Structure formats: structure tokens, C-alpha cells
């Protein structure tokens, strides 16, 4: 439209567009008013069906004793929540989830940072290496868990074979808290380190080269450049990856579940040493058939994620106001 108007001779421009302009705005206005709602409607409709309704239903079910084993359902109020706060197995699963999150995430982000720093240099076949670290992301979590499960097998596992080769004792990786956490964290790390490294790499490439050149002229070592230029400038990116990892970490499920092969996988080890919140939730629902109580656990998990997200949000705000 604008193009047409500017090209048209000045005499005509006042005559012809006017009636069109008078018609168009009514269409356009309607369009402007309704279209946005139409465009976002699919999301909200889907959200209502798959988000809002289940959420509401969870709130309702958490206040009942619904179970497929009993025909009658009765309203029990806050009983499920009271029980939850005294449930040592639930708190054990919270500790496990947070513990594995810490054990997995800190080395993961450090390794990603170091990897990204290497890949940010000029290397031969750099494209290949950059692609290679991204490969684990496209493998299915279940496959990763399956392969790592065999890797950490007690009797015939590769990990124990290597330990034995170097004269160490075999480890029953699934038995103690620490060995199982380490094994599960290694699965998470294998899959996500490359992803985070790619994000860091993208951010690093946005750092102007001349900052490093200036530092080099001032005689700063590579190490010093890394810690005093790269890392501070990556701060927002690091925060972003921490948030993504937090969300993923709180929902950790497939890796610890598939770490047990055979019966009793949802128990997360013989003493629940690697049972995460989501695993306990599913166990209560599926194995114990206590759907009401499972609803209460789901709500508390939801609250935990909200709290963690709020903490993250406050952290970001502080950091961005610092800059």
C-alpha cells in the first residue's frame, strides 16, 4: 500500500485511496481485534484440555481416597497432605532428586564450559567436533538408560571390568546411594553436556575478539582470559542453563527407572536410594493404587517446581540488574 501511494502521481493520490481507506479499516480493525485471539486460541484450547482440566482434577482427586480397588470414593479433605508431610519415603525421594540434581549438574556445566572453550578455538575439523558433541541429544533417553544399565551391571558390566583390570574391587553400582547416584548422573551428563556446551559456544562466539586480543597484549594467560573475560560475560547464559537443568533435574524419571532391570524398578533401589519424586508418584499411583495420595504428591511436586522457579527468577533479576 505505501509503495503504491508513493509511486502514484500526487494528483491522484488524494482521490482514489480515500474510499478504499474508508472500507479497509473496518475490515482491518475487525481483523486486528479478532485474529490475535484466533491465533492463540488453539494453544489455550489445548491447554484447557491437557493442562487446566488435569490440574483441576488433580486438586480434586488429592482430597479423596480414590482407588481402582474400591468402588466407593469418599472425600478426605487434607488427610493426604498431612500424611505426605510425615511420609519419610516421600522426603527421601525429594532428597534423592535434589541430590542427583546437584551431583549431575555441577560437573555437567563445568565440563560443558570447558568443552565450549576448546571448541571456540581454531582446530582442525572443528565442524566435526561441534557436531559430535551434539549427537547424544538425539539419542532416546530410554536407549541411553538401557546401555548405561548394562555398562554398570554388577556381574558382566564394562565399568566393573575396567575397575577389575586396574586391580580395584567390583562395585554393585545399584546398592549404595553414592554409586547409584554417580551412575545415574553419568547418564544425565552424557546426554546433556554437549547440549549445554553448544549453548555456551554460541554465547562465546558473541564475545568480541578484540577483548581477548587486548588481554593478550596485556600478557594475560589463556586461563586468565577464560576466567576473567569468558566466564563473566557468559553469566546470563550460565543462569539459563542452570534453569533448564533444574527443570529437567526435578523431573528425573527415565534414567533412574531404567537403571533397575527386572522387577521392582519403581522402588528405585532396594532401600529407595535412587527413587526420585516422580518415581514415587508413579509407584503410589500404579503399584499401590492410591490415586488420591498420588494426586497430593503431584501437587506438592508442582509447588516444589514453582518454588525452585521463583528462586531462579529472583536470581536472574538480581544478575540482570547488576549489569
Amino acid at each position: 500500500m505505501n509503495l503504491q501511494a508513493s509511486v502514484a502521481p500526487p494528483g491522484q493520490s488524494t482521490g482514489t485511496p480515500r474510499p478504499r481507506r474508508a472500507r479497509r479499516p473496518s475490515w482491518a480493525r475487525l481483523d486486528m481485534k479478532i485474529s490475535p485471539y484466533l491465533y492463540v486460541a488453539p494453544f489455550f484450547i489445548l491447554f484447557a484440555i491437557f493442562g487446566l482440566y488435569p490440574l483441576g482434577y488433580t486438586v480434586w482427586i488429592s482430597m479423596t481416597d480414590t482407588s481402582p480397588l474400591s468402588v466407593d470414593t469418599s472425600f478426605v479433605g487434607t488427610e493426604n497432605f498431612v500424611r505426605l508431610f510425615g511420609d519419610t519415603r516421600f522426603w527421601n525421594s525429594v532428597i534423592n532428586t535434589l541430590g542427583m540434581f546437584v551431583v549431575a549438574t555441577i560437573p555437567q556445566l563445568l565440563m560443558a564450559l570447558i568443552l565450549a572453550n576448546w571448541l571456540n578455538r581454531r582446530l582442525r575439523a572443528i565442524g566435526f567436533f561441534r557436531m559430535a558433541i551434539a549427537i547424544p541429544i538425539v539419542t532416546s533417553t530410554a536407549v541411553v538408560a538401557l546401555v548405561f544399565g548394562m555398562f554398570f551391571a554388577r556381574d558382566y558390566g564394562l565399568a566393573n571390568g575396567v575397575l577389575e583390570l586396574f586391580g580395584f574391587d567390583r562395585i554393585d553400582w545399584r546398592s549404595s546411594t553414592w554409586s547409584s547416584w554417580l551412575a545415574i548422573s553419568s547418564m544425565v551428563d552424557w546426554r546433556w553436556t554437549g547440549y549445554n556446551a553448544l549453548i555456551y559456544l554460541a554465547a562465546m562466539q558473541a564475545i568480541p575478539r578484540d577483548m581477548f586480543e587486548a588481554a593478550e597484549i596485556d600478557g594475560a594467560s589463556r586461563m586468565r582470559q577464560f576466567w576473567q573475560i569468558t566466564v563473566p560475560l557468559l553469566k546470563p547464559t550460565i543462569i539459563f542453563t542452570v534453569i533448564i537443568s533444574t527443570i529437567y533435574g526435578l523431573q528425573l524419571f527415565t534414567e533412574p527407572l531404567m537403571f533397575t532391570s527386572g522387577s521392582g524398578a519403581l522402588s528405585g533401589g532396594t532401600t529407595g536410594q535412587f527413587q526420585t519424586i516422580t518415581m514415587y508418584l508413579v509407584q503410589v499411583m500404579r503399584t499401590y493404587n492410591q490415586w488420591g495420595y498420588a494426586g497430593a504428591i503431584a501437587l506438592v511436586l508442582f509447588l516444589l517446581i514453582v518454588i525452585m522457579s521463583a528462586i531462579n527468577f529472583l536470581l536472574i533479576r538480581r544478575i540482570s540488574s547488576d549489569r
Partner: protein
Amino acid sequence: MSVRPIRRSKTLAMLGATAVLIAACGGDDDTEPAEPETEAGDNGDAEPITLVVDVFGEQGFGYEALYEEYMEQNPHVTIEERGAGLGVGDYNDRLVQQITAGSGAGDVVALEEGTIVQFYAQLDKFVDLAEYGAGDLQDNFLPWKWEQGTPGGFILGLGTDVGSMAMCYRRDLFEEAGLPTDRDEVSAMWPTWDEYIDVGGEFVDADVDAEFLDAATNVYNTMLMQIAGNNSGYTYYDTENNLDLDNPDIKAAWDMTIEMIENDLSAGLNSFSDEWNAGFQGASFATIACPAWMTGVIAGAAGDEAEGLWDVADAPGDGGNWGGSFLAVPAETEHPAEAAELAKFLTTPEAHIEAFEALGNLPSSPQALEDDAVLESTNEYFNDAPTGEIFGSGAFDLKPVHLGPQNNAIRTAFEDALRSVEQGERSPDEAWQAARDAASGIG
């Protein structure tokens, strides 16, 4: 500006296309040409249908030949089986959801002994097979098996197999340890579990590169079912379905299992895990508690290389049953009559014999148990052991054990506790307490 109308028309076009699609789908039923039925007397019955049979277990239920036969007799029926390779736990979790949701379950579903009790509370979700003439079939099943499948007279499930008990052992490892290998001599070594533990001690002293038994949980389950059958008649729940963790039978089985762990008899494997399967191939244990259905599991897991190395002896102690299943028809099925017919067909005495020959699942039908095909059968894989005789002889004297609604969940709690002792993570007393705590939470 000019982009918008186009987008809108695109959206409209897509909406239109969707509407057409929906209309097309909806119209499908009407437009299907009514096939000219040849007047074969099958009035309307011959409309082709597919019946889905849900089973579980590493190798299913051994019904392949029976399906063929049934489809030949009823050409309008196509049978699809799902679930072979699925463990009973996963299978049951899924089934509970499907039954509760009233959608997704097969037309004929297998219900395991430990889980059928869960469905007693959901009888409205199943077809009462009495409506399809199953009431006349009572004599085809062992009395206690029939009773388990018909709560309050409602014919929920028809029995498939029972799991009477034996002890499977590896001949080569026994020979290496200097123990007798002949099955009668082996049976004579362990009339009771205490003597079984003694034999285990001898095996350990011989310093063979293998453990005596696969998993403490397997002997525990075996002993519990046996002891309960001979004493209280129930395990974790009394016959009124109240949780009774003070049942002395539980503690008796537990204590004996702990003694085995403390004597280093157990390989400490998680039953039905990859490592447990690998243990069969690597010969990492010499004996395994062997309900009749376990013979199929062993043959599948140990593979052809181990053929003839395994053998079957009598189990220590007296009798006992572990496992066995039923076939039921969920109410959600679109073809209740045909599904009921199929369920009846798969549970005839002849079908029991067929499944026994295919996988070693012991019939729950007295006619089949007395049939020469079962009585005189030998299992080639197990060094030609007379499995029909070994398992079948005990089946008539089996004393039923009542299992409560949450039996599987509570059994898992006790199994976890036993494994934690095997791993050295908990002392026996701590583990016992942990199992009881977990069990009362499940209640």
C-alpha cells in the same frame, strides 16, 4: 497487509479440509458395502472380527497353535496376541489402567493369580462368563482354581495354569561341587528347607565358581506360598482382606531366607532382570526355585547351549503353588460372545495340554493333569526330566493360599527388603522393619 487475507483463507481452507476428513471418517461405517453373505447358515455371525488376547511373560502363554486351530474353525475370527515379553508387573499396571478407563484392554485378558484379587472390586468392568455358558465348566478345573476365578459366583476368569513347585538345578555345577546329579538322589538330599541350606553349604565349601541359588526373593516367595498353604492359608492379608503382617508364616519364610543369605548361598540377582537372564547363560547359580511355568523361563533365558544341563528335582518342603493365571473378558469388548467363546476354547483340558507341551505351563484342569500326554511327558531341555509327573503329582494336593488385593505391592516391599540385605545395605532386622513399614503404608 496483503499477507493476512491469504493466511486467513489458508486457515479456512484447512478447517474445511478437516471438516471433510471428519465427514469422511464418520461416513465410513455407512458407506462400507454390505458384503453379500453366502447363505452358509452363519446368520450374520460371519462378519470378520479381530479378537485381541492380552498375555504376559517372556514367551507368552504358548497359545500359537491354539490360535491357528481356532481361526481355522472360525474363519471370520482373526486373533492378535499382545504382551509376550512383558513382565507381569508392567502388564498388570497397564491392565489396571485400561480396565479402570474402560478402554484399551484386549478382548480376552490374562489375570495372574496375584492380581486377579485386585479386580474382585471391579467386577462390573468384566463380563460374567456364566452368561456364556461357562457355568457348566466347573469340573474342568481344580476346585480351588475355580474358586479363585469366581468371586461370589461371578465367573470372572477361567483357569489356565497353576504353578506347583519343584527345584531346578544345574547338573554340571553339581558335578563340579561333588554333589549327586541324579534327580532322585538330589530330591532325596533336601526333604526340607533346612537340608536344602545344608546342601548349599556343601556347595559353597566346594568352591565352585558359581553361587548356590539365583535370588533370595525367589526362594522366599516359594517358601512363603508353601508354608502359608500348609498353615494359615494366607500370606499378607487374612481371608477377610485385612493386612496381617504378624502372620507367623511370613516371619518363618523370612528367617529361613535370611539364613540362606547369611550362609552366602545367594547370587543376589534381581529376578527377571537382564543380569538374572545373563546369569543363566553364564551359569552363575546352581539351583532355582521352580514353579512349573519357570521351566519355560529357564529354557528361554539359558538358551540352546545349556540344553540338557538343567534338571528338575522335587522342591524341599511340602507342596506349594506360586503363580498361574486366568483368562477373563473385559466388559468393554465389542464382541463379548466371541471373546467368551475364545476364552472357553483356550481353557479346555485339551488347550491346557497344548500349552503345557508348548511352554511347560502346568494345567489347572484335572482331566489334563491325568492325561497321559501330561503324566508321561518328559522335558527334553531338562535332561528328559518327567516334568509332567514331578509337577502334576503335587497339583492335586495343592492347598490354596489366599492373596489380598495389594498382594503384589506388598510382596515387592518384602522383596526389596530382602535384596537390601543381600546387598549389605541393611541388617536383617532393619530390613524387616523397613518392609513392615512400607507394607503398612500400602495397606
